[in-house]
């Protein structure tokens, strides 16, 4: 997994690519929670190039979401590919996360 962090219109955007699993999710957790602790108002996570996610990756996202909610911030997930979208719906997290099609959609919501 690769993590590229960029800023778009003042919002930090995590561009992820590859597999998010037990091996790679600690790196994501480190970067994400570091930003959460800074109490930024909004974080976008771009999934368009993510090929796989397991429960450790999901747990990292849930932890990040809860951390953001603690200070009134927002965490949005963008461009979740169809092949992994089922994991979010099965685990009922599609109702918990703000899931957007792309950047434009995320800024509008």
């Amino acid at each position, binding site marked *: 997994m690769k993590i590229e962090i960029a800023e778009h219109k003042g919002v930090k955007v995590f561009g992820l690519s590859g597999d998010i699993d*037990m*091996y790679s999710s600690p790196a994501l957790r480190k970067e994400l929670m570091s930003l959460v602790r800074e109490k930024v108002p909004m974080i976008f996570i771009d999934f368009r190039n993510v090929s*796989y996610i*397991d*429960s450790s990756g999901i747990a990292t996202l849930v*932890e990040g979401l809860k951390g953001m909610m603690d200070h009134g911030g927002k965490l949005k997930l963008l461009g979740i590919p169809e092949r992994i979208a089922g994991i979010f719906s*099965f685990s*009922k997290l599609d109702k918990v996360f703000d899931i957007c099609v792309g950047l434009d959609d995320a800024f509008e919501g």
Partner: protein
Amino acid sequence: MPSDPRYLCVVREVTAKMWQLHGLGEEMVEQIRLAVDEACANVIKYAYRGDTEKRIVVRYKVSRGRFEVVIEDSGIKADARVIAGRKLEDVRPGGLGIHFIARCFDVFEFDGRKKNGNRLRLIKYLKERNEDRDSRT
């Protein structure tokens, strides 16, 4: 495979290929791949407590009507009575892996005959194949 999380990607790919090589449905590939990955990750996390120097043995048995995956370790015995995922409605980190395994395998059981370590048997019955076979007889 070594009990190192970096090798989980290998197990995922082999699992998916085994499924595909036997002409089994594409729609289940993602679920089966995830389930076997979660089972191996649980071995690393709970049976070996993160020790990356151990071994995990993964065997596949494909026969008419069933796809079976057997995962063995020599770590701490799992207590099947207390293994349970969190309620899906209870949104918090962790507790999903068991659900990902249970949703796609028809049999999810530990072999109590193994004295040291664990032997997890996962079986997926191939209903469409059974129906095809039944219709021919």
